[in-house]
């Protein structure tokens, strides 16, 4: 069972445009929602993360919008650049007990291509 659902699977955006990737979850125990960026042949790297006590978090060109009642969150990349071309994964985790604390559940990923 997919704990976190992500869409779209792939996205093509013109340079300077806005890229939007959406994720949805069911488990209300999730309380940490990171986005990871992965370039080919590299490991995922944390891009930005949010907790459910805020509805939006912005870092530079990257913004997470969070809708707790709808159990959805999204990543917006403003002024998309060719260097942003990568695979983006949303994830979720919860303050579980002991060893389950912080276990990440990943979405399936979105392959973003930004055309120059």
């Amino acid at each position: 069972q997919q704990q976190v659902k992500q869409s779209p699977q792939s996205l093509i955006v013109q340079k300077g445009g806005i890229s939007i990737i959406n994720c949805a979850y069911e488990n209300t125990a999730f309380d940490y929602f990171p986005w990871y960026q992965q370039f080919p042949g590299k490991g995922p790297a944390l891009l930005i993360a949010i907790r459910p006590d805020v509805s939006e978090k912005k870092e530079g060109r990257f913004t997470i919008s969070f809708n707790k009642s709808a159990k959805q969150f999204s990543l917006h990349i403003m002024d998309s650049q060719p260097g942003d071309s990568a695979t983006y994964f949303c994830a979720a985790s919860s303050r579980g007990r002991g060893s389950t604390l912080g276990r990440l559940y990943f979405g399936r990923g979105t392959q973003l291509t930004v055309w120059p």
Partner: protein
Amino acid sequence: DAMVIQNPRYQVTQFGKPVTLSCSQTLNHNVMYWYQQKSSQAPKLLFHYYDKDFNNEADTPDNFQSRRPNTSFCFLDIRSPGLGDAAMYLCATRDRGGTEAFFGQGTRLTVV
């Protein structure tokens, strides 16, 4: 500076020949994870350590084993690799009280 280091970056092994992948960390994190990532898929958790406490995912094949001799090092052993085990293997760490997971560069395993 690399904080989670995986070796080797690329590994080619023969079908059925045991192989070991290694991961080391300079962060002194007590939680370590092993993920398997196949092409165009999300990372799939195989197992993790919380200190020395080993936790196996229910659907991790018995063919996969892990060792953590100390805080800094963790190994993934594949006893009899099959063609379906070809993937990128990712190691990640997390601090006990933290939320951010730090990933290594991964080891790309090819089975021939």
